[in-house]
């Protein structure tokens, strides 16, 4: 009400009744709860849906990964002396490589980047290695990359995590997908890497 009028204004017939001071908290609290539910709800529902499917997949006795539902083992074997397992879902892929002895996570990441350079043209990788901590406490380093597959000419983007076992064995997780698709699988990839059992 305007102070200059000086007379208390009657309430509009369709106006809500004034709230008692204690009740003024109710509506803002409900607003806050709705915000929390919408903002956090997706992550909570995702966590509930990210259930393991099938038995864990081990690679050379060095690392074990639990595929989430929808992910399947698409290949296992050895390339250049390194044992690997490939999991895939649609156009998303997670390569888990048992690298063998390595001196540090940083050198492992650098060595794997060399492998990517040999497989992809126009490789662009993030300069900084981001620290990563897995659920079992293992620490590692990660970087992202974009490159063009030499054979098909298709552009792919990926995220690499390098980890060392307690006895110095290197493990590399390389999750990748065609350009524009990584954001639709990186939640699963991050979850599977996070839950991997190292050593």
């Amino acid at each position, binding site marked *: 009400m305007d102070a200059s009028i000086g007379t208390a204004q009657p309430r509009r017939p369709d106006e809500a009744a004034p709230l008692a001071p204690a009740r003024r908290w109710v509506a803002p609290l409900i607003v806050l709860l709705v915000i929390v539910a919408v903002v956090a709800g997706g992550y909570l529902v995702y966590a509930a849906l990210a259930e393991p499917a099938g038995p864990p997949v081990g690679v050379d006795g060095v690392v074990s990964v639990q595929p989430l539902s929808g992910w399947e083992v698409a290949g296992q074997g050895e390339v250049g002396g390194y044992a690997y397992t490939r999991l895939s879902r649609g*156009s998303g892929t997670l390569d888990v490589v048992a690298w063998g002895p390595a001196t540090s996570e940083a050198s492992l990441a650098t060595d794997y980047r060399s492998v990517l350079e040999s497989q992809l043209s126009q490789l662009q990788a993030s300069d900084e290695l981001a620290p990563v901590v897995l659920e079992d406490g293992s620490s590692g380093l990660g970087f992202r990359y974009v490159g063009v597959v030499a054979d098909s000419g298709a552009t792919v983007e990926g995220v690499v995590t390098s980890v060392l076992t307690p006895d110095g064995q290197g493990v590399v997780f390389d999750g990748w997908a065609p350009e524009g698709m990584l954001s639709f699988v990186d939640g699963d990839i991050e979850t599977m890497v996070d839950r991997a059992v190292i050593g």
Partner: protein
Amino acid sequence: MALAARRRPFHQARFMQPRLPAFWLYMVLLVATGVVAVAEQAVFRDASPDGFALSWLLLAVYALPVFAVIYALDLYEREPLSLMVAAFLWGAVVATTLSAIANGGWGLVVARVGGPEFAARWTAALTAPFVEETMKGLGVVMVYLIARDEFDDAMDGFVYGAVCGLGFAVVEDVFYFAAIFGGGVRGVLQGFFLRVVASGLYSHVLYTGIVGMAVGIVVSRRSTSTRGRRLAQAAGLCGVAAFAHFLWNSPLLDLFPAEPWTGTDWLLIPVATAVKGLPLLVFVAIAVVLARRRERRWLRLALSTEVGGDGISAEELRLLEAPRMRRDARRTMRRRAGSRAASLLHRLQREQVNLAMVASRAADPSDPALAQQRDLCRSLRDALLAMPGAAPAETTGAAG
């Protein structure tokens, strides 16, 4: 003398209301999300200073007139600018920041359930309408909780919702110009054409305007409609907004030419956006026309017992009901008696709208507040008629 005192228009609440918990919740959320939003803008600025400056310049050219049009939509009672700015900032800062986080989470759910190929096509359609309309709509709710008295009808909700949507659209456009269109000058111009020239009429301003209208219906009309009916109407409007947003983000009715766009492709883009957006624009236009008619009926009804009294004459009511005639009367007054007289006439008209507000609240005609408002109108009219040239003999009513 009452005339000499400068006073805010009647029935205009302020945004700054420290005694209200809703005000503090608003401020905490604005500051917390503002830190994130400013950091994001700094990244865009550092990546391409020229493109960043051009983005904001172009968006200001778009947003300022749109803001003015929204502000003018409410025929009889302009909303307080402080609340309009609060709604804009909620959309621009709070809703964009929280929606970005929430969209990420719900996007994970879509990808988890549907797989990457499904998610690539449908995530934007399945997450953004639900997340973003909720976040923006809560902005209208917050403005209501801070200034409950300002929500008289659906139109008030539409105004606050549309401004909130405008704020959201502006910041989202800056993000798109930088992150999707490259951020350089050429990319910004392409983004501006696609998202503002070709699409600017259809998007967040309309969605949130409709959601705001729903809020306005729920919190007003208590004396003429049951709670169930109001909730049903509001749910229907929110459903329309969410569906329109869903359709816009979905691959359905997608007539966009294949990329990369060259030559005549650019001419087809406005056609493609119109197919998805024009039906909603027509819906909103009809809803706004209906809401304005309702306001006009309300004004006539509220002043029906006052016509011929001290507060308003029949001729003054005739002018008051038609915004164009009101403006014409002021223009004529300015020519005849100068700008001070026109300004006084403007104030008289505003106080007569306020008289309608008081009359609609007063339980009986002898209510002191009503008598005081009548006196104010009469004193304004007397002062106006005392100005040289303001009262030609044949148009006293129009002048007053």
